[in-house]
């Protein structure tokens, strides 16, 4: 289990695979949801639906970043998961304090309450996992 790793641990190993599985589900559901919304009723709530699509793209990029190995994939994962955290906090707050801007729900509305709060917890787990798996390599590089 805890043999000293000479390199950074790949994010797509061990419990990281469970994380990737959850990200893949959110990538799929957010993208599919946005696709239907944009195709059938874009004019009803353009901002909410575009944000839906944006969240879908962020989840896809985070899934790819976490599932692949290497410095570029790790950077992609850090960026996507950070944007995801900012997104759920900003959109969550806006949807609570300015309901008029969000007549229709997105994945991030109400801090992800409609999805069992998973959208709020997921980026925290993602950042934690990136930090955990990246530590060895960072220490060695310096």
């Amino acid at each position, binding site marked *: 289990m805890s043999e000293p790793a000479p390199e950074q641990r790949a994010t*797509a*190993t*061990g*419990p990281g*695979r*469970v994380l*990737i*599985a*959850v990200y893949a*589900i959110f990538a*799929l*559901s957010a993208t*599919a949801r946005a*696709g*239907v919304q944009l*195709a*059938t009723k874009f004019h009803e709530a353009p901002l909410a639906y575009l944000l839906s699509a944006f969240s879908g793209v962020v989840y896809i990029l985070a899934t790819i970043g976490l599932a692949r190995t290497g410095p570029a994939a790790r950077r992609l994962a850090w960026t996507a998961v950070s944007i995801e955290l900012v997104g759920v906090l900003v959109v969550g707050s806006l949807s609570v304090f300015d309901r008029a801007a969000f007549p229709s729900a997105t994945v991030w509305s109400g801090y992800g309450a409609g999805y069992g709060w998973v959208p709020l917890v997921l980026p925290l787990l993602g950042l934690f996992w990136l930090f955990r798996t990246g530590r060895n390599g960072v220490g060695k590089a310096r």
Partner: protein
Amino acid sequence: MIHPLAVALVILTGALAVFGIVSTVLGKPPERPIVLAVGVVESLLVAQALIAAVRVLGGVRPAETSTFLIYLLVSVCVLPFFLQFARAEPNRWGGAVIAVGAVAMGVVVLRLLELWAGAHV
């Protein structure tokens, strides 16, 4: 859709999720028993999707028909990929990966039921 089949699938996906979590807790890699369990659930999901698709083609209109059809497609596509992903690194975490897929498919079946309840012929 057939209501009893959908209800059975909600229960079975829940049971599959418990199976997956238990194998993770016990530290077992995903082997034959859980592969068979995924096979049973997947076969029933495919049966349900075929029945529902035939009934939609026959003129039943669930609420938000396009969303309903996308959910049907998702309901049959996810578990095979998750099973493969779970077995690609055969360790205890495979069970949890299958559990994530099973819970998601349970939610999908619940959404299908909801949309079907709003159907008109």
